[in-house]
């Protein structure tokens, strides 16, 4: 059994209540950190653990904290990114609704390390029912002296609030999230300056994903070395993988990084294989934004080595033959799936979610959706296939934020690996897989 850090107690009845959580050792890390660690020592511990941001980018969390500007008297802010919206990703909701106190405990640790006196959890508006669960847990934490003035007599004070979004994928991008938290449209900001220097209300700010924050208590309790001992290479610790699509057991699994992809897909402990005994056709391994891979390349690298669930192994081969771990949104497709149609739903998604600031993304995502619709409907031409790739190349790298790249990569990779299927749509003048 893999080490469970985030899901260890997830099935304990009443875990969302303070009393149950506390009885299981909850908030011990806050007692420990406030008593024995300076804020910088907490940051040092997180750096040493090798924890990487779990929202998708995989940037070292401790290093991100290290960038925060402590040279001014401005307030500093710690913000939780709970805007979970990347198609295929549904892990943070699981933590928020079943184990909100672990997130709050992590928020206290991060806020203490960064010197924040007010922190916010920004949660997508659709998940209002989860916001209510977290707000109730926050009230309990206040009532028990773990939030508010002078936490556990340490002299450290912290206020923590939730803020709902309004329905916009782009607010998962940290500068768009900050804009939204300020009551504005979710238009990403040009970086630099980075939020660690100029963030919320122009003050130094760190934004971290729910999973990144929820793992902090374990790191403080057990030590950075214990965390770094789990995993493989520069992929330390455990990762929540939300698996969906054509598998026998969709759900949320906590894996030790380095698990072979084949074991993850076929073992009964995890996805339990492909539905109806069908054949695996393709996988989108890290949320809709990452390149799609055909069965042979997700199970083994181009060099023939077993592919592992780690940042490095999934990226092996670059964009030619590899992909990314991303957010851990693992979408599995069996051999009944039309790759063009699946891609069309993603293209429609990015077109809908583009904030509209940058022309390549605003216009290009719409063009890609239209062309894919044309091909899927049997009205496409061979030229359309190259046009798709050309548009994706003109979006990639030419936008303020990564949404442009996120829209381009699925298109480029689907054509790269499944070109024949696009051509079949054109030749047959219909979807070869439609009933």
């Amino acid at each position, binding site marked *: 059994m893999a080490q469970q850090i985030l899901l260890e107690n997830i099935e304990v009845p009443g875990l969302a209540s303070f009393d149950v959580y506390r009885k299981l050792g909850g908030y011990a890390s806050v007692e420990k950190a406030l008593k024995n660690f300076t804020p910088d020592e907490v940051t040092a511990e997180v750096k040493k653990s090798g924890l990487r941001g779990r929202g998708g980018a995989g940037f070292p969390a401790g290093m991100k904290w290290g960038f925060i500007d402590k040279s001014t008297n401005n307030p500093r802010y710690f913000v939780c990114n709970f805007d979970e919206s990347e198609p295929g990703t549904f892990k943070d909701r699981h933590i928020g609704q079943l184990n909100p106190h672990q997130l709050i405990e992590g928020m206290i640790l991060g806020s203490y390390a960064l010197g924040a006196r007010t922190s916010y959890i920004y949660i997508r*508006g659709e998940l209002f029912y989860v916001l209510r669960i977290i707000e109730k847990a926050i009230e309990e934490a206040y009532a028990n002296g773990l939030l508010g003035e002078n936490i556990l007599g340490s002299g450290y004070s912290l206020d923590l609030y939730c*803020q709902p979004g309004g*329905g916009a994928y782009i607010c998962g991008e940290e500068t768009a999230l900050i804009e939204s938290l300020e009551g504005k*449209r*979710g238009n990403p900001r040009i970086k630099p300056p980075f939020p660690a220097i100029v963030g919320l209300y122009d003050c130094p700010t760190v934004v971290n994903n729910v999973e990144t924050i929820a793992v902090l208590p374990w790191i403080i309790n057990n030590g950075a070395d214990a965390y770094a001992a789990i995993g493989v290479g520069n992929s330390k610790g455990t990762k929540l993988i939300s698996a969906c699509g054509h598998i026998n057991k969709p759900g949320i699994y906590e894996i030790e990084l380095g698990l072979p992809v084949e074991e993850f897909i076929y073992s009964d402990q995890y996805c339990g294989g492909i539905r109806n005994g069908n054949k695996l056709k393709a996988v989108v391994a890290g949320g*809709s934004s990452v390149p799609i891979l055909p069965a042979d390349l997700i199970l083994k690298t181009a060099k023939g080595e077993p592919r592992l669930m780690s940042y490095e192994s999934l990226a092996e081969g670059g964009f030619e033959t590899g992909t990314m771990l991303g957010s851990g949104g693992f979408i599995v*497709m069996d051999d009944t799936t039309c790759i063009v149609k*699946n891609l069309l739903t*993603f293209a429609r998604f990015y077109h809908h979610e583009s904030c509209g600031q940058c022309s390549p993304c605003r216009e290009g995502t719409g063009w890609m959706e239209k062309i894919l619709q044309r091909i899927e409907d049997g009205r496409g031409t061979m030229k359309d296939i190259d046009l798709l790739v050309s548009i994706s190349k003109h979006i990639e790298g030419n936008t303020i934020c990564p949404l442009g790249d996120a829209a381009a990569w699925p298109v480029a990779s689907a054509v790269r690996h499944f070109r024949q299927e696009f051509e079949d749509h054109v030749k047959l003048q219909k979807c070869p897989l439609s009933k």
Partner: protein
Amino acid sequence: MQNTKNTTEFSSETLELVNKIIRRYPQGRQKSALLPLLHIAQSENSGWLSSEVMDYVASLLEIQPIEVYEVASFYSMYNLQPVGNCVIEVCQTGPCWLKGSEELIAHFEKKLGIKPGETTADGRFTIKTVECLAACGNAPVIQVGPEYHENMTNEKADELLSKWTTENKCSHTNPYL
């Protein structure tokens, strides 16, 4: 800015909640409360934001009406046109499509005799297609007000529709209460 339309104004109970939310942000940053306030305002105005309602929210936050309009028109959860009493939002993104959301949408269309974006003649139901609701493991998924309904099937849709018809389901409830 004075708002004279009594129907638009919040009750004293709601105003108390509004002030509690505004206090969560630093002094002078009350605009941060805009998204939460729009959710509340929409729920108290039959599920949509009229320009009168948006002007009222602007006055509460002491910001210009245009600052409210530009936000309300950016985010997909805010309806700028009237909607039915019960808004059914069906996810159509990849993972839900892989598990049959297209058939589910077609089923709702057939049962209610309307297309996505439309409202039944009796004003009871609106269907909306939405993008990823972050519940892909239990696809296909629909949302009705704050409720998620997961692992949807046509049969489950029928049961819910008849239940909602009987109880005259309203999906616009103040999400904080």
